């Protein structure tokens, strides 16, 4: 789950990170009022779950409250990479001396949280990583020991020659690490970490991504989810305990298991089709999930054919068959459906489907080819 900048900053502030004051506005008038309250120049920043908002015009410097109102008017409602801006963060503008980058991510290779820091922070950090990798220091953290001061200082000295700044940065890294661990992050970053002309260290932007698997035990973090900023069909799927990602094709796919789901999409493409989605109904046997999956997929007007690919292991194929029958009785399908079922209780499933007028195959390639043809208008 992605947090908004303002949410990440609130968390980091709680761990002691020095962050300029800021509040969220959903209307231009609110933005103006906040700017007035601060009585100084502010930044108005679009709160959307997507990178590159600055280059898209979603971040503006505002000298006066009137200016803030004007800029907020422009930004609120703006479309950035397909997402509509519903909120802006109005925050005191910082004097920027230099910009550093500080981030943590859980790294598959070392199986540890790994810090990445660079004195060349700011919006072009990926370019720095690609072109001048020596400007980035990687420091893995063993969570059994936490982030020791010596490693934090080593990173501090990598960023700054001055010991006071190095110590300040080291402290911020320990605060960031504490926030990262306690909030169940898979990523947390401060970019830029600014040194002001007077030598103060401030976090001007903050980002956090939460491991979805942590949300059950971190209700306060889970409550930060902003469904208004997500694709509605994906929200719907999540509420139904389905993993769903909307794509641009026309073959709606319902599969059990992520690997098989990806392989099914690959096969759709292999046979000349385009998948309309990734949808994993998961391992457990539950007709309800199938009902929800069909509801979500049929809500997409692009879908021209529906493909079920179920390999019954934990999943009982008769449950899936029952789900298909129930769902289509309540809401008759307007597009053709191709069903591939094999595995646990396959015979029962086949009987249920046949009795209800469906046909089903047990061969994956055959089913995929048929669905692709149907989506193209064939029979």
């Amino acid at each position, binding site marked *: 789950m992605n947090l908004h900048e303002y949410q990440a900053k609130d968390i980091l502030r709680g761990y002691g990170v020095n962050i300029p004051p800021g509040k969220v506005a959903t209307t231009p008038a609110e933005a103006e009022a906040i700017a007035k309250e601060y009585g100084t120049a502010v930044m108005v920043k679009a709160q959307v779950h997507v990178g590159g908002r600055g280059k898209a015009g979603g971040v503006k410097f505002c000298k006066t409250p009137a200016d803030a109102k004007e800029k907020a008017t422009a930004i609120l409602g703006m479309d950035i990479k397909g997402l509509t801006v519903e909120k802006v963060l109005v925050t005191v503008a910082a004097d920027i001396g230099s910009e550093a980058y500080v981030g943590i991510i859980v790294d598959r290779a070392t199986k540890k949280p790994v810090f990445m820091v660079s004195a060349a922070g700011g919006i072009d950090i990926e370019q720095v990583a690609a072109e001048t990798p020596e400007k980035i220091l990687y420091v893995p953290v063993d969570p059994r020991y936490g982030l020791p001061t010596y490693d934090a200082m080593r990173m501090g000295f990598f960023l700054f020659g001055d010991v006071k700044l190095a110590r300040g940065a080291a402290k911020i890294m320990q605060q960031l690490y504490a926030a990262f661990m306690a909030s169940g992050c898979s990523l947390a970053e401060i*970019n830029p970490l600014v040194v002001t002309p007077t030598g103060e260290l401030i976090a001007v932007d903050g980002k956090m991504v939460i491991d979805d698997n942590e949300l059950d035990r971190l209700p306060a973090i889970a409550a930060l989810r902003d469904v208004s900023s997500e694709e509605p069909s994906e929200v719907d799927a999540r509420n139904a305990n389905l993993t769903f990602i909307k794509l641009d094709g026309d073959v709606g796919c319902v599969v059990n298991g992520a690997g098989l789901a990806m392989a099914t999409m690959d096969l759709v493409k292999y046979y000349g089709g385009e998948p309309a989605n990734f949808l994993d109904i998961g*391992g457990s046997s539950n007709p309800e999930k199938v009902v929800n999956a069909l509801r979500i997929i049929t809500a997409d007007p692009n879908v021209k054919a529906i493909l079920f690919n179920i390999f019954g292991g934990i999943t009982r194929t008769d449950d899936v068959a029952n789900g298909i029958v129930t769902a289509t009785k309540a809401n008759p399908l307007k597009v053709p459906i191709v069903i591939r079922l094999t595995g646990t209780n396959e015979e029962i499933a086949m009987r249920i489907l046949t009795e209800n007028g469906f046909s089903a195959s047990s061969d994956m390639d055959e089913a995929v080819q048929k669905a692709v043809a149907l989506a193209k208008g064939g029979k």
Partner: protein
Amino acid sequence: MSVFIDKNTKLVIQGITGRDGSFHAKQMMEYGTQVVAGVTPGKGGQKFEGTVPIFNTVMDAVKATGANTSVIYVPPPFAADAIMEAAAAGVQLVVCITEGVPVLDMTKVYPFVKEKGVRLIGPNCPGLITPGESKVGIIPGRICMPGPVGVVSRSGTLTYEIVYQLTRAGIGQTTCVGIGGDPINGTNFIDCLEAFEKDPKTKAVAMMGEIGGTDEQEAAEFVKKHMKKPVVGFIAGQTAPPGRRMGHAGAIISGSSGTAAEKLEAFAAAGMGIAKRPKDFVELIRARLG
């Protein structure tokens, strides 16, 4: 012969009285796995299905029954603790089926099991099966048959699909291992490839990877350098859209790595067979078995 489990595997099931645990306990017992104990705190002293003794702790179970392997079916928030409990209790192999284990939990569990010298498979994996000898986890027994192919995979149902196609074509398996698809897991491709290379009965290996990370590339490197046996590989997610960006850090650390194209290139460079579709495994493996 086989890898990791065989007919001498003595299994303790953590979460044996739960919904998933009890269902699969029965499946494993029917398959012939030696299920010697179950663990459910508070049910110590009872018996599962009238035969398998239940204990309050894994330590009690191991002491009383000599279990050498554990399989875990407990809910995600308790899975990390369950893995450590098993590792501390002295089993040699821990298989964690549970899906949804927080990855930060795994950053602590991983060094713990390493320190104990215990092999962990999973989490978020279907477990493993040595056809005709023992099944630990949830891989459906009837889709497998004994034979010369080692199977290792990051996914669950995709593995079933491919094993099923092999079996239908009359190609059996030594052991099928589902290592799980989580970012941090206990056993990786290389561990399994190494074991298959050493196993005299394994004549060829089928390996199913996925997009993300660099495990497949490292595995290909291992195949190139250390394996004499033929390996056929597949990558799922070739057409998946590039992952939603994980902030700058994700882009920095993974850079260009993790794509299907890159992985397939590594397979080719290692001289591996490449299955474009799951069904391609059948002919590619058959050709390599000679």
